[in-house]
């Protein structure tokens, strides 16, 4: 049996939330309200930190409800869930920022938690001073930082400005500096909240790469993220939280599948009733759906073809129609517009048809894509049907795809067969080469 780095038993955490105050309707009651104002304030403030033995009022919120799990030494555990599922609260309790209401946690090893980058940065201090400040706050000793200072400065790439007060930094420089400190933490257990969402992409990659090195070296890591790609790439095991409870515990792939299926609105099927369907008496778009190669899967890998189909009703006596769709990425960038080209009335005429298409494998980069518009056009002029927000799907990278590159490479496209060739020139004379 391998050693447990973290054991969580029956962990619960309760908060008090604010309640709406009753509106006063008469002048008299308003007056009373004002007189009682300090007393009420006092009561509310006291209540923030005190709880009666048994209390289950409307203003109690259980952010965590009886969590039980263990993390093995060296394991990288991902924690996913919607906003408000209790992820951040769990990390806060684990990093001892707030104490639990019930339950117990045992942690073996030195913990560093990274819930924010640049904690403790003071704008008036120089970059160098802030490295020490931030480093000690994250649990390093002065001696450790002394030893790593040069590497931290090099990693940040802002050596020139390291003796300038941080307030004169651009926000990007601040993030770089903060990340560099964080990347040189050396704990046995690392707790990371979604801090990797900031910083420019180039630098993010550098940090994630560093993080992967660390995790390979047998560090225990707890990692909260909304970024399914990062979770898929970094984690050995993933748990899903929902309203303070653990609802799933398993491999990254299974967890992401469950999560996308149950908690995220990825539209894999869109259907309309005949009456409500977009269109007119000439043609209607009745629906669309994605076709997955494996049953029970709800995402694609980059090396899979993405198949989908549209269901169309038409009543065309003469003329030709075509179907066009728009594909956008998560930033709303239009990736492509494809059309069927003219379909003659003989081909579909009067009745129902299925029009299917696909996007070849190894073209789209990992990410979330949406077929956000489809049009049925008659004779290249009249729009018969127009539907928005049809299908949304997730493309995940293959784990083996990017060894050493854990962060997403920028760009909408990701080619697999890039046919790079490297030829060394025989001559060393530049004139000859030209």
């Amino acid at each position, binding site marked *: 049996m391998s050693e447990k780095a973290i054991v969580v038993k029956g962990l619960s955490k309760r908060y008090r939330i604010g309640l709406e105050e009753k509106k006063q309707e008469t002048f008299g009651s308003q007056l009373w309200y004002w007189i009682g104002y300090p007393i009420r304030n006092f009561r509310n*403030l006291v209540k923030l930190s005190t709880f009666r033995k048994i209390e289950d009022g409307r203003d109690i919120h259980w952010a965590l409800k009886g969590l039980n799990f263990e993390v093995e030494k060296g394991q990288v555990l991902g924690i996913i869930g919607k906003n408000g599922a209790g992820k951040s609260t769990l990390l806060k309790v684990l990093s001892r920022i707030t*104490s*639990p209401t019930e*339950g117990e946690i045992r942690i073996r090893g030195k913990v560093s938690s990274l819930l924010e980058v640049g*904690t403790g940065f003071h704008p008036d*201090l120089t970059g160098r001073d802030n490295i020490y400040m931030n480093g000690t706050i994250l649990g390093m000793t*002065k001696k450790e930082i002394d030893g790593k200072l040069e590497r931290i400065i090099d990693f940040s790439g802002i050596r020139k400005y390291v003796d300038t007060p941080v307030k004169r930094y651009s926000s990007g420089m601040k993030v770089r500096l903060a990340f560099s400190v964080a990347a040189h933490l050396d704990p046995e257990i690392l707790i990371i909240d979604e801090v990797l969402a900031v910083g420019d992409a180039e630098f993010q990659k550098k940090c994630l790469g560093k993080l992967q090195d660390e995790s390979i070296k047998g560090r225990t890591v707890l990692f909260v993220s909304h970024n399914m790609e990062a979770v898929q790439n970094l984690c050995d095991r993933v748990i899903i939280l929902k309203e303070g409870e653990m609802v799933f515990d398993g491999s990254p792939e299974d967890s992401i599948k469950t999560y996308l299926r149950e908690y995220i609105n990825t539209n894999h099927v869109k259907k309309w009733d005949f009456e409500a369907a977009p269109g007119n008496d000439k043609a209607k778009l009745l629906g669309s759906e994605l076709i997955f190669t494996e049953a029970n899967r709800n995402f694609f890998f980059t090396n899979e073809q993405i198949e989908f189909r549209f269901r169309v009703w038409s009543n065309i006596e003469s003329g030709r129609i075509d179907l066009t769709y728009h594909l956008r990425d998560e930033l709303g960038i239009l990736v492509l517009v494809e059309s069927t080209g003219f379909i003659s009335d003989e081909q579909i005429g009067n009745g129902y048809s299925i029009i299917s298409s696909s996007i070849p494998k190894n073209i789209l980069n990992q990410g979330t894509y949406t077929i956000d518009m489809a049009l049925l056009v008659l004779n290249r002029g009249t729009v018969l049907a127009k539907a928005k927000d049809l299908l949304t799907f997730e493309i995940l990278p293959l784990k083996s795809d990017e060894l050493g590159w854990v962060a997403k490479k920028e760009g909408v496209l990701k080619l697999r067969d890039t046919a790079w060739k490297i030829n060394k020139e025989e001559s060393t004379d530049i004139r000859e080469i030209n």
Partner: protein
Amino acid sequence: MQREIETRIRPEKGWKLIDLNELIRYRDLLYFLVIRGIKAKYAQSVLGIGWAIIQPLFATGVFTVVFGNLAGIESDGAPYAVFAFCAMVPWGYFSATLTDASQSLVTNSGLLNKVYFPRIILPLSAAFSKLLDFFIAFIVLAFFLIFFGIRPGIEVLFVPVLICILLTTSLGLGMILSAMAVQYRDVKHASSFMIQLLLYAAPVVYPASKVPSDWLFVYSLNPMVGVIEGFRSAFLSTREMPWEMILPGGVVGLCLFVFGAFYFKRLERVFSDVA
């Protein structure tokens, strides 16, 4: 191989002692917070640390004119300026520490919510970073003494005792107020003018000998009374070491410190929830 640390996290209940071992582990953080406090305070100012001299000097100047000359308050035989400045040295430390320490948790609530460390470090660092100003004020006092040709007596040897009382009192109150301020922001509003008023509850602008002897015991329960009068005795030789004031004040100071430490530790667990 380093010894493995095992941490147990469970709901905390009741009154607990401050964990000294942990505090020692985090001493570097304390050090850098103190440095940060000092550097940040004087950053981007022309006079920089010079303000630590100017502030008590100007206050002393005003006191000398208003209380020494206009109101004619006696000063136990010493020149009024040095009489007042001698009190301004500990009083300045006390008021600056209290102001800073009481707000230390609120102004650093960002830290409280994002990272764990013994919270006591925040008021501690506020108290320590004020020691520099305190030290500078001492040097200025030395110049005063030379200028007026006053020679401190053998009582100077008791100054460390007085400083201990000053520190425990400032820190004790600092811990209590900072912990309260997290939950009740009233502390911020109250403490700024309370500190101004408290100036008159201590013998800063007048000598303690003015206080009716019936009230002297109650008066000297204020730890600052013994400290200030003790400073005057040590440096100005205006009187004998006033042990009858220092002892009750010292006991109160110690009580404040011990209570403050427990109170702080008790409230510590809710800081991040209510800050």
